[in-house]
């Protein structure tokens, strides 16, 4: 089943996607209007950086040098703050005064029950749903300091359109495709994650608690997809969803 959140007459409403493709409102009525999607989660959004083989391989030579001095041991985590989170169809704002921004197509893992000190063997049972994430960022030339400025700009985390129930989904088999203006630009296989989805949950929950509604971004590959104002960027995961957002200049949005 697919569940989402929309804004309707200035109210946040839950919707479910029916087998026929129609949306049902939380009161059981069909949605007649075209939906204004919100991010389908309300918890904390965490991302795992350096969790894709392509990225690790590209940096392998640098890990022993300053400032890193050693390869990462624990998951390299960041937080996408609430101002970054937008729904399907909402615009990604290209900030004034910024040279480049890049798409970051990735799998989103939605936590279903409080996960604390969970083993990798048990971890899948703590996942409620999956979704599609575009972890937009400025290019990063260093991973030494937290990337708040690169990653926490308004609208830099489209999520959705909806959540797909985790049952019957094997995250290891999923393929994330990123399109710009309809052209396939990047393919990201979850089989290439350095830490698999269950291992990620185990390693994170060893020192901090994941709560129901929290979202984990499983890991973007070596970034290759630049975005420009005027583009439409789509991140698609077969069986999960197609997340599409226009890119507009920030000044135009004011």
């Amino acid at each position, binding site marked *: 089943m697919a569940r989402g959140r929309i804004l309707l007459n200035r109210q946040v409403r839950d919707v479910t996607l029916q087998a026929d493709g129609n949306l049902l409102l939380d009161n059981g009525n069909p949605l007649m209007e075209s939906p204004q999607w919100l991010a389908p989660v309300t918890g*904390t959004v*965490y991302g795992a*950086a*350096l969790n894709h083989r392509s990225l690790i391989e590209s940096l392998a030579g640098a890990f022993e040098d300053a*400032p*890193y*001095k*050693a390869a*990462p*041991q*624990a998951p*390299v*985590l*960041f*937080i996408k*703050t*609430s*101002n*970054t989170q937008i729904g399907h169809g909402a615009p990604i704002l290209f*900030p004034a005064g910024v040279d480049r921004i890049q798409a970051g197509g990735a799998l989103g893992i939605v936590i279903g029950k409080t996960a*604390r000190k969970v083993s990798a063997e048990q971890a899948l049972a703590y996942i409620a749903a999956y979704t599609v994430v575009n972890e937009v960022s400025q290019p990063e030339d260093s*991973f*030494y*300091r*937290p*990337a*708040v*400025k690169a990653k*926490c*700009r*308004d609208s830099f985390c489209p999520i959705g359109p909806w959540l797909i129930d985790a049952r019957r989904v094997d995250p290891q088999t999923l393929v994330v495709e990123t399109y710009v203006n309809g052209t396939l630009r990047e393919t990201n296989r979850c089989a290439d994650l350095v830490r698999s989805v269950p291992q990620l949950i185990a390693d994170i929950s060893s*020192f*901090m*608690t*994941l*709560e129901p509604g929290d979202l984990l971004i499983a890991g973007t590959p070596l970034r290759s997809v630049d975005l420009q104002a005027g583009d439409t960027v789509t991140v698609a995961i077969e069986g999960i969803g197609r997340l599409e957002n226009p890119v507009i200049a920030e000044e135009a949005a004011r």
Partner: protein
Amino acid sequence: MKHARIRYQGQTHNVMVNEDHSVTVNGQRLSADDVTWLPPAQGTVFALGLNYADHAAELAFKAPTEPLVFLKSPSTLTGHQQVSVRPDNVAYMHYECELVVIIGKTARHVSREHAMDYVAGYSVCNDYAVRDFLENYYRPNLRVKNRDTLTPIGPWWVDKADVADPANLTLRTWVNGKLTQQGNTRDMVFDIPFLIEYLSSFMTLSPGDMIATGTPEGLADVVPGDEVVVEVEGVGRLVNRIVSESEYENLRGR
């Protein structure tokens, strides 16, 4: 006026705190010891690293030329009179007494001249770190700074109007009654107006967001059994106790 969030008889309440630190819930006056103190606000938590020149020198760093900002999630926050866990088999876990700024209204592209208009008030936090887990990726990484229970904050927040000069407040930490850390907010590298201007230059700040503004020199290791008190003059005194992993599991199991 002091504002707090407390839990009493299974319910969470937003309350005013009386002069004697009692709180009034549904017309009933409750002493400070009768309630569970929660973190006083619920927005995004920003924290500053190396924001006092003396502390930067203590850690053998030059003071940064741009604020070193990192983020915390709700999972690490805890309230006044709660416990913080020292992990087993670590060599160095230290406290950090910090003034916290509570944002009062939506802030975007705010200049330092107007920045204080966006402040609702102030609180106190103890931004514990477990240095054994430092890695040179998004440093300070979440495994150091975002562990469960390692960010006590509170006991309350006080209105901006009740603090005459936030740029001249004494910060002090006591471990088991012994003064171990002392500094003054006048020694911040980046002051409050600068931090609000900086953060709001690239992202939107919202009411309830918190900025933990960094700590001066005077760090020391703390071990299970220690009582740690951090105080910001005229804002609050936040008490917390260090427990071992096994003691924490026993407390949770009750």
